[in-house]
């Protein structure tokens, strides 16, 4: 138990953790800048003279750019819908007392417990029936629905934390309900919207299960789903594989390094109070 009083011990825990986290990532990036033929000779050699050919192969050799674009469209579209719908519903549930409002909130909460994965079969058949199978819009709607319960819950919490005097003051000044929401309240719940955005967007960007089931056309595939195709194509060309993985990971890593505080808050929302 002496160990627990030792500051060097904690310092070394964090250093070892950092090494274990960063080494594989460094290996990934380093290897993406080496020619595949170099691996068998020296698996650990540093890419002193970066070889960019792998990236050219990734970018021009296949569907990679269109995978990225699809992921951007699907994540962006879902995020847009989630933001609008969760702000609206969160506002109403936090601010209006009406018959059944408790019931609606309870309904939203149970929605948080239903994993989209287990409803995949009926969803598949339903989307097919609606003509939304193999469609980016269909996927956007499913993602929106899956993220909405938590998003509404988070937003209604933020609306509830604002003083009611704001509403009365705006109404006395003649603001309509929508003006009150748009001009007065929304600017004040922006931190909540940031949390909702990160909480919803990261799992959507990273997901490959729903695209795997719902998207078949090669030109509609998302980046994470596309990686599985890509990995089959280039199985023996490690340099190209690593370049593909690096490119797929890069957008989020850069955003994370800029906004790490918001990312950590957003992704642990629900598990951490306040």
């Amino acid at each position, binding site marked *: 138990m002496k160990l627990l009083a030792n500051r060097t011990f904690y310092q070394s825990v964090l250093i070892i953790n950092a090494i274990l986290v960063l080494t594989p990532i460094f290996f990934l990036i380093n290897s993406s800048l080496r020619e595949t033929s170099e691996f068998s000779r020296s698996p650990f050699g540093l890419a002193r003279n970066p070889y960019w050919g792998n990236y050219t192969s990734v970018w021009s050799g296949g569907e990679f750019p269109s995978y990225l674009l699809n992921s951007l469209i699907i994540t962006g579209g879902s995020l847009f819908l989630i933001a609008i719908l969760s702000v609206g519903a969160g506002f109403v549930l936090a601010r209006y007392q*009406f018959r059944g409002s408790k019931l609606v909130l309870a309904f939203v909460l149970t929605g948080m417990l239903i994993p989209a994965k287990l409803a995949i079969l009926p969803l598949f058949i339903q989307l097919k029936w609606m003509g939304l199978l193999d469609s980016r819009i269909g996927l956007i709607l499913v993602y929106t629905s899956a993220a909405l319960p938590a998003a509404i819950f988070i937003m209604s919490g933020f609306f509830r934390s604002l003083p009611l005097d704001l509403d009365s003051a705006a109404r006395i000044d003649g603001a309509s309900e929508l003006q009150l929401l748009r001009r007065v309240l929304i600017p004040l719940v922006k931190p909540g919207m940031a949390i909702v955005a990160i909480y919803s967007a990261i799992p959507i960007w990273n997901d490959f299960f729903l695209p795997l089931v719902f998207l078949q056309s090669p030109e509609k595939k998302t980046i994470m789903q596309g990686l599985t195709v890509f990995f089959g194509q280039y199985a023996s060309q490690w340099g190209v594989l690593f370049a593909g993985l690096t490119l797929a990971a890069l957008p989020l890593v850069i955003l994370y390094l800029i906004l790490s505080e918001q990312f950590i808050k957003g992704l642990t929302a629900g598990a951490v109070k306040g």
Partner: protein
Amino acid sequence: MSKSGLKRDQHRAALFLLVPGILTIVLFTTVPALTTLSYSLFAWVGFQRGDFIGLDNFLRLFEYPFRDQFFMVLRHNTLVFIAVMIFQTGLGLLVAYALFKVVRGRRAYRTIVFLPVIFSLVIVGYMWQTLLDPFYGPINQILLKVGLTDWALPWLGDTRTALPTLVFINLWRWVGFPAIVFLAGLNAINQEFIEAARIDGASEGQIFRKILFPLLAPSLTIITVLTFIGAFEWFDLPFVLGGSNGSPAGATDTLALMFYRLSFGSVDSGANNVGVGSALGVVIFTIVGLGAALGSNLLRRREVEM
């Protein structure tokens, strides 16, 4: 005032703002979830629904050929839950406590600790697959170089090591999550308790065991419940690394993979079985729901208030 108890313009705003969101949830979450339940009560041929057969699909889960598979994957999910609780949650707590104790560079360390959590499991899976490649992977190369020849195993290809290796990769990706949750819990604890104990001559070990750990119970409850849900719905990593059949030889098979195969069919087990698949979906949902509810109730009872 309208019937609902709202002023007219509020009534209109409520309809306009609330209904689209609720409708989306109903249409794409609630209805499909309830439909899964109804699917499990019918006989199916491919995607064509047949007669109502009551609970037959549920009973078939416990008969040949599903029975052995069902109990095997159930065992795998249970083992994964236990292993994750011990190693991932344990290490998460250690890292959280280290972050709590170390002041210099805390922000940078925190950013690094959480970094893997933002990686897609597809990327994490493929990255580790190459790192662990039996012939060219750097990990086995190191093991060979330092003379640990017996340790240079085909980690993901051997039925004995495949599942533990997946648990390890899962740990690499996830450990930052409990760490941050525990850190938030530690930061929420009133420092005066710790100071008072220290003045009374308590050792660091006593402070951790008698004060910090009991007060961390709410964080532990949340992590346990989330781990339970994650372990019994485990799909992405096993699918990326072992395919839908849980290779090698079913060693990494899980409930969710079995559900996927039953739903959409697979290369070797052939046609799908929507009825039994839906029944399994309902079973998974029940396990997860009951486990989470029971766990949070039991654990919450031993939480202490400050």
